[in-house]
């Protein structure tokens, strides 16, 4: 392990110890937060007993569907938009201001459109993630060297073939950047929607536990979500670095 990684572990350990100490001394009372070791124990109990498995499975599978849709539709849209300059320039202001708009405000509309099942939640996760994928993929496609496009033309590749075999592989690290955002956004969308209105899922369970002062359920579930999102994000970042390193960047 490098020196910096050691420091990083030390900083995290110190933070956890500090929380433990604050809980022990009573600066943070039990109703506000359980000490970290209790949270970990409760998390293990929840995972072993399996009583939250349905909720965990529902949230994670919905988030994966939203992420998959956002990635697929986002990349496809970006490839099409890249070919139509005028359309792209018209949509540019929308992309630039999109993340300043509270997408959750559209949740009621989606419920009426798609019914009160999983679909509106997936819809919110998708809507949050898709623009990040489009913007980053476009950014990657802009950087494809002219010579590669020319090569594709010389090989008489069609539009779809060019995208699949030449331009998208070149843009892969940028698509990955978009995918990283999409992971975070699809989780935010699904969990936020579950908080607002739903009949299950981790967001629902967390808010249910909150309303019942059930910290033994609430904190472990929150920690689980954080661990899942940070691990996926770190994994994708590693992959992105690997791709860039292979190109000598």
């Amino acid at each position, binding site marked *: 392990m490098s020196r910096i990684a050691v420091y990083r572990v030390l900083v995290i350990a110190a933070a956890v110890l500090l929380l433990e100490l604050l809980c022990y001394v009573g600066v943070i009372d039990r109703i506000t937060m359980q000490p970290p070791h209790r949270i970990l124990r409760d998390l293990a109990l929840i995972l072993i007993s399996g009583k939250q498995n349905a909720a965990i499975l529902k949230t994670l599978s919905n988030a994966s569907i939203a992420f998959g849709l956002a990635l697929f539709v986002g990349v496809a849209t970006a490839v099409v938009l890249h070919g139509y300059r005028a359309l792209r320039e*018209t949509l540019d202001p*929308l992309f630039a*201001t999109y993340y300043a708009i509270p997408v959750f*405000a559209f949740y009621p509309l989606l419920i009426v459109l798609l019914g009160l099942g999983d679909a509106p939640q997936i819809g919110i996760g998708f809507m949050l993630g898709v623009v990040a994928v489009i913007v980053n993929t476009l950014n990657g496609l802009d950087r494809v060297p002219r010579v590669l496009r020319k090569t594709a033309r010389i090989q008489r590749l069609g539009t779809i073939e060019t995208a699949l075999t030449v331009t998208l592989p070149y843009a892969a690290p940028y698509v990955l950047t978009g995918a990283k955002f999409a*992971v*975070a956004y699809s989780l935010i969308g699904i969990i936020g929607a579950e908080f*607002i209105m739903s009949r299950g899922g981790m967001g629902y369970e967390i808010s249910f536990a909150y309303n019942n002062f059930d910290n033994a359920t609430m904190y472990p579930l*929150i920690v689980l979500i954080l661990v899942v999102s940070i691990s996926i994000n770190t994994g994708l970042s590693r992959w992105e670095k690997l791709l860039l390193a292979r190109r000598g960047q």
Partner: protein
Amino acid sequence: MSSAAMKSARNALVLIAGLLAAWQALYWFVGDAALRPPLVTVQYTARLMTTDAFWMHLSETLQAFAVALSIAVAAGLVIGFGLGFHKLSAQVFEPMLVAVYSIPKITLYPILLLAFGLGMPAKIAFGAIHGIIPVALFTLNAVRNIKPILVKTGRVHGLGPFEMIRSILFPAALPEIFTGFRVGFALTLIGTLLGEMFAAQRGLGYLLMTAIGLHNVELIMAVTLLLVVFAATVSAGLLAIDRWLHRHI
């Protein structure tokens, strides 16, 4: 008006016209259950804006947002400059900041509610945690990318640390810092509104949440319209300043 400005104004107009047309078409498709057509919504919004209650909610939201944004910018600048100057701490803390940036912060809202109680402080905290990290990360990168010759020049002139920041580092890093501010602005606004949706009894987010609960379609649409118009206008303005700064400095 320059030709570029003409073009972007035309693009914005085409986009707005397109969105209005899509809205009207969606209304014809969905009907009165979930939507109101653009004209009716604008009329309702105009009427809403004459009520005292609306201005009470708006001023509550603006206050919370202003405080949250100030905290996010101040803390973000301190963290960004602090880490930017100290290479080792930047190496240790930057990946942690990126990881925290990617977590779905919406899951943390019950913790903030337990820590701050229902009301203004919780909303402000929720807004601020969304904004701090982008400001810090952009500032950190800006400070790190300042040309060494500028710092050397400052040293040759015998500047103290504060003089150095005020007259060399801050101006040199300004365009990037402004980009961070722009992103932080959007995220803090969303954070504040989300905080109000879950953790408040006043404010536009609360108004929206009650409208969702009562299925008051006019009110949902009016509040959403106002939020979208406000967020889009301000971010378009900030984006214009951002691009100008990047071209001129």
